[in-house]
């Protein structure tokens, strides 16, 4: 019994370490087996924290696909609906709308940090700094095959600028 418990504890520790690695690396190596390992590299994924009563938030990340693919959808256990949104700023008028899909050309980093982002709609709970959110990205490759890639994105403060390299100190 003790042996079994110890074994479980070890497995739990290994799992915890793995999850921690995933969170810190923000990488799609964490994608479950069979979900096109290595097709998509996700870096710098994060979700904006919410205040009580807020039912939507944005997720931001950098995507790099090994081959031509398209991001066609997403889902998350924390939200009723997850959409790909495009934000445009024309003459200082911000427009935000849903897009059906986002092309991911091979070996090209596509930033979902300003013009595009993942929108979490109908949040089931408040997102607090220090927590993390699992988001499943749905991809369609050039052959029409579907792939699901899970990412674990840490929750960052509400006032975090979406573009990290923005010149905040000049």
């Amino acid at each position, binding site marked *: 019994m003790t042996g079994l418990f110890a074994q479980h504890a070890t497995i739990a520790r290994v799992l915890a370490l793995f999850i921690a690695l995933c969170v810190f690396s923000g990488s799609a190596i964490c994608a479950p087996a069979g979900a096109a390992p290595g097709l998509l590299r996700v870096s710098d994924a994060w979700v*904006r924290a919410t*205040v*009580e*009563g*807020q*039912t*939507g*938030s*944005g997720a931001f990340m950098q995507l790099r696909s090994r081959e031509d693919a398209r991001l066609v959808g997403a889902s998350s256990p924390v939200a009723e609906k997850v*959409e790909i*949104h495009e*934000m445009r*700023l024309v003459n*200082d*008028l*911000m*427009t*935000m*709308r*849903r897009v059906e899909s986002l092309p991911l050309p091979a070996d090209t980093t596509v930033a979902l940090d*300003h013009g595009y*982002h993942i*929108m979490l709609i109908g949040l089931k709970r408040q997102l607090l700094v220090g927590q993390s959110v699992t988001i499943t990205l749905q991809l369609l490759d050039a052959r029409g095959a579907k792939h699901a890639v899970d990412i674990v994105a840490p929750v960052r403060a*509400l*006032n*975090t*600028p*979406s573009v990290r390299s923005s*010149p*905040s*100190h*000049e």
Partner: protein
Amino acid sequence: MSERSSVQRAVAATLALATVLLATLMLISGPPTRWFGLSHPGVFHGRDVSREDWGGPFTLSDMSNQARSLSDFRGKVVLLSFGYTHCPDVCPTTLAKFAEVRRLLGTDGDRVQALFVTVDPVRDTAELLRNYVPSFDPSFIGLRGTEEQTDAVTRAFHANYQISNYRGNITVEHTASTFVIDTNGKTRIVTPYDQSARELADDVIALLRTG
């Protein structure tokens, strides 16, 4: 003849050198309007609308459902922006910028009042604004109005907003600019979204100096 042309050449060379020097100087220190410092009236990073009819008095409800008028903030420079709490990017970035402006101003930061006017008063209840707006800075105030009031205030600031709900897809658009209102309630500057906190702070300092 040849003497005269050598003089002409010398003049041309001097002019060319002077042009290059001036161009270099402008590259290094910005356009001539910036050389005289910010105390010079009419020199703002943002668009100067001092001579135009922007904004004007308004009354909206605050986060405790109390009526607030622009005149309540006389003596302070007001930073006003339109937005909505479900805004994933532009609005939190703008409010974070306002908080940074207050920090950059040090003790003068208390002479700045940030106002966030929601264009989505249906979803943005007083309670939600109370949770959201002060989380960027405790002094910040969220304001909301009826549809008519929201229309009137956005129109006064030549701002646009539209919320459409097509097959359950809510699309929101709104003006992302910041309106800088002087200590007497006159809208003086329209600051584009992509201007930095430092530039906005400089403009606020200029208004605090000149009134």
